[in-house]
């Protein structure tokens, strides 16, 4: 706070200090898809972000939809009715998802964005603005989130500044399972259980190999020892339950036998089904 006759430009950073955003990959997919399908004369795509605000203040962005807009050098026009219609439709399915902000493709924040941000801030107290750089201008695809901060000179509002907030890409477990599929441009068929199992085990093996190599390197003195990593490794190894070999064998064998029994039961059932079906359709009365 300034004293005397000098007014100081205030950047109020308290409110944004602990604000961060989490984005589900579905949102990125949606945005890319809308960008690919945009009408020819539009340079970028604008849309609404849906989600919720978590109790600790982070904004959880879960869904999105595109809103048609027209843009020229001076002005930007959004189809507000469309925006409301889509909102109502989405809320019919999931009433917990509310507007949390808006997105646009393209790297930076332009002048027109301030207007749109203003519009969205009428709907939501503190909207988050997400930019997704589909042009890969920096040589990589950047996703950034901003909130608007008011710059005040003394008592007068000067301008609104877009301040970047930390962004976190979150993925649910089930999506992680299919993640390999989602990365490439095309996959010929979905992996079956056993193939997936094989892949997972290979990865685990690779991880264990890495650890072995690291430990060997440290012992031989090739790599400087890092105590925290060493502690992690010893913790992990200690996490294996200490069972005596006979007890452990008994456990494993019991489980094996249970699984075998189930396998046997299901095979019997299938044989029974085959028989029953033959009897049912083959039976003729005289």
């Amino acid at each position, binding site marked *: 706070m300034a004293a005397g006759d000098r007014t100081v430009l205030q950047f109020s950073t308290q409110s944004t200090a602990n604000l961060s955003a989490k984005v589900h990959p579905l949102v990125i997919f949606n945005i890319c898809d809308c960008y690919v399908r945009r009408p020819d004369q539009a340079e970028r795509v604008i849309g609404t972000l849906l989600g919720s605000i978590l109790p600790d203040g982070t904004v959880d962005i879960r869904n999105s939809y595109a809103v048609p807009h027209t843009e020229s050098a001076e002005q930007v026009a959004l189809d507000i009715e469309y925006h409301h219609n889509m909102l109502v439709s989405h809320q019919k399915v999931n009433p917990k998802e509310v507007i949390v902000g808006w997105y646009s493709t393209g790297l930076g924040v332009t002048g027109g964005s301030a207007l749109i941000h203003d519009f969205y801030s009428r709907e939501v107290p503190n909207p988050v603005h997400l930019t997704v750089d*589909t042009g890969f201008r920096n040589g990589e695809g950047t996703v950034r989130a901003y909130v608007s901060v008011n710059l005040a000179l003394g008592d007068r509002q000067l301008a609104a500044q877009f301040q970047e907030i930390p962004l976190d890409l979150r993925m649910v477990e089930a999506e992680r399972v299919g993640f390999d599929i*989602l990365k490439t441009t*095309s996959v010929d068929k979905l992996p079956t259980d056993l193939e997936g199992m094989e892949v997972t085990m290979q990865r685990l093996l690779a991880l264990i190999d890495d650890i072995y190599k690291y430990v060997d390197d440290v012992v031989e003195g090739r790599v400087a020892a890092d105590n925290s990593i060493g502690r992690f490794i010893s913790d992990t190894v200690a996490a294996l339950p200490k069972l005596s070999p006979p007890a452990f064998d008994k456990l494993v064998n019991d489980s*094996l036998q249970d699984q075998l029994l189930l396998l046997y039961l299901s095979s019997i059932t*299938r044989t029974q089904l085959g028989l029953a079906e033959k009897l049912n359709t083959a039976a003729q009365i005289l």
Partner: protein
Amino acid sequence: MAASSAPRSFLQVAATEEVVSPLRVVQIEGLVILKIIKHCKEFSPALVTGQLLGLDVGSVLEVTNCFPFPIREEDEEIEADGANYQLEMMRCLREVNVDNNTVGWYQSTILGSYQTVELIETFMNYQENIRRCVCIIYDPSRSNQGVLALKALKLSDSFMELYWANSFTGEKLREKNLSWVDIFEEIPIKVSNSALISAFMTELEADTPVTQCDYDRLQLSSNPYMERNVEFLIECMDDLSMEQQKFQYHYRNLSRQQAQQQAWLQKRRAENMARKAAGEEPLPEEDPTNPIFKPIPEPSRLESFLITNQISNYCNQINGVAGQSFNRLYLMKALHDN
């Protein structure tokens, strides 16, 4: 088409029927998969449905987008609401250049128990309007085991013909050589993504094995899942035995009726003998008005087929999970020995 001898007029070409190439592959976009996963997971264990949109190209059915249906509480005014919602969504999506073409629907399921008569009815409803439609089944409970349980189903043509004729008697089925495996056809799924999305994804999630390891698959506790599977299996077996009892009852009735017919025939013949001896007209040997000649309708086998399908599904699942458990157990054993 045979080599054209003379150039055909446009009318002729338009009038010829195109040969429908059989559906061989369903090509789904990653976006649709993510949406389905998200929707089904959010509402599990409730069952949810949604609509699939896309294009029908040759022997490939492309699914490019989807939207979920709201859950219906009661059926009062929801009918009109549901239709309105659908139209609204399709219209809005049209404005952002999404393919506006319905190609099917998706639904979530619990432990693979999706073979019901409602499924078939929905298929029939869709089939009336769309030439080729597909149903995608997603199982969130199996995905917790670390498998992406997504299946694309379609009714087989022979089954559909039988359904239209609405007759599931034994002879018809034997004619067509149709058994319970033939009701649903599973179509292989191919996943495609636009280059932009795959660039983004590769960018945002590095390819290192550390972040990639899907530990869910290595979970040792598959017992609860197996228990539920076996429970469902037992229930289905009960249903199946009920169906079979219905058949037995029918057969018993049929044979009893036949015995009655024979007895009546004998009596008639004896009477005719007597009448011939007396010089009168013999009575006809058949009497359609007698109730014992009324054919007894055979119960439809549709239910039993569906139940059988269900049971085999459960068995398959059990087999799959048991196989995985074997792997895990041996892995654990090897690790422990080391």
